[in-house]
């Protein structure tokens, strides 16, 4: 049984159709990169899977259960955690309180406060600091830590490297690499194609709300993905047909 399958999913922002009939599947423990240009619908797709955005059509099946009409907190309780774009920490709560809040999902497991502090040592000294006072790297570590505290089976990561220095991003990816061995499946949105393809066993590229190309990372060349990324195949095909 697949961990997650998304079937012909559609989502809108008012008149704009941000996600157009996307179907994809994720196996347990698999790491999948979701790439695409700005406005390709990656964030909306992730938010729709997590329940933060309304589904216009299609369905989301998680662990064999149709969760299309479930609320975000019910999906969290089933084992799905989103690290949202822009981190979205609770600024007036401390780092520790942000992490502890994840217990609301009611899932116990290997991830505790101590385990998170172990994985992200830069948080140790900031444990009692308000989340609003953290540096970008610390904020991102807290956001990922908060998602891990839900002991998820599927981790949805939305541009975790955004706004961070290359050094911090390197460290973050090293930690994500370590996460893979724990058996958590990950669907990561990433702007940096090279980094995404290095981390993931499978790559999905979106263009204008639909899947442009998809396959095992090993079977895809960067050129193929780049072409899909910018919609060059389509442009060439249109040019030829004229």
């Amino acid at each position, binding site marked *: 049984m697949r961990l997650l399958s998304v079937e012909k999913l559609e989502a809108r922002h008012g008149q704009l159709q941000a996600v157009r009939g996307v179907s994809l599947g994720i196996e347990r423990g698999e790491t999948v990169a979701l790439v695409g240009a700005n406005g390709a619908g990656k964030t909306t797709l992730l938010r729709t899977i997590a*329940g*933060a955005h309304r589904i216009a059509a299609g369905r989301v099946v998680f662990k064999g259960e149709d969760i299309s009409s479930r609320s975000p907190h019910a999906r969290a309780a089933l084992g799905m*955690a989103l690290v949202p774009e822009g981190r979205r920490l609770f600024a*007036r709560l401390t780092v520790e309180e942000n992490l502890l*809040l994840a217990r*609301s999902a009611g899932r116990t497991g290997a991830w505790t406060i101590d385990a998170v502090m172990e994985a992200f040592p830069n948080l140790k000294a900031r444990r009692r600091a308000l989340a609003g006072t953290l540096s970008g790297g610390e904020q991102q570590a807290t956001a990922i830590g*908060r998602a891990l505290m*839900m002991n998820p089976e599927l981790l949805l990561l939305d541009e975790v490297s955004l706004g961070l220095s290359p050094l911090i991003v390197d460290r973050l990816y090293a930690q994500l690499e370590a996460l893979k061995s724990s058996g958590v499946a990950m669907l990561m949105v990433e702007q940096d194609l090279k980094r995404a393809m290095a981390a993931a066993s499978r790559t999905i590229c979106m263009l204008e709300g639909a899947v442009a190309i998809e396959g095992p990372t090993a079977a895809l060349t960067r050129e193929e993905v780049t072409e899909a990324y910018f919609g060059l195949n389509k442009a060439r095909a249109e040019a030829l047909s004229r």
Partner: protein
Amino acid sequence: MIFLNQILQGVLLGGYYALIACGLSFMFGVMGVINLAHGSLAVLAAYALYVLADRFGVQPFLGLAMIAPAMALVGWALQRLVLERSVRGGLLAPVLATFGLSIIIDNLLFQRFGADTRSLGPYVGDLSYDSWSLTDEIAIGKLAALTMAVAIVLLGGIQIFLNRTLTGRAIRATAEDPDTAGLVGVNARRINAIAAAIALATVAVAGAFLGMRATFDPYAGATQLIFAFEASVIGGAGSLWGTLVGGIVLGVAQSLGALVNPQGFFIAGHFAFLVVLFARLFFGDLGQRIRTALAGGRRR
């Protein structure tokens, strides 16, 4: 000496204001809802305690053990039936909805109990008038001291609950960002209903002390709302310890005002409220924003 006495009595009166402002401040600070039915709900609780005492001989403190949970249920229903829907309509809709609710409560109470004033004083023995004499000129009312103690315990208890428990943290997180709270596994609807239930349980306590320290009638809610509102705003809306400070500032201002002139009681209280409000407008964050906006407008 009389001056000192007035200040002391003012501080104790502030305890009552903090008690009545507690629920209002909590609802505004945590849920962002201004509940204009707050005063009427306190009077409703006072009437409920009166009926229990008058008809069934239940002593008000014992009655509170029944009425506080009952008011918590009212809070739950209020959130689900009125606030939750009206909040979707913007900032003004809950204000109008709760204002309407206060009119309904006031008039239903009037229809049922008439215009007679009532008090819970007769049902609490000598507590309502007994006092400890400190000196020949200064005495502390037992009820006033108890009110202050209850205010401190209630405000402190809520603060600890918000800081130390999972539900308390979920309430704070939901206040800040309900969408993200949902993604972390918080059931925001349930949390808001719990917060409303807590707020109204404190309203029941406020109603009990309102009834014990003085008389009330069906339309007494509006005055209580104004005092609660002033104490909340002076203390910095939404801050629980600030609410205690706000209540004390209001109480002291009123006591000192009464020393100057019998009419001075209300005027001095309102004056203190306006001074703090204008000070905020001119020197606080809000004033900074207004000045920036005005300066920007002039440049254009």
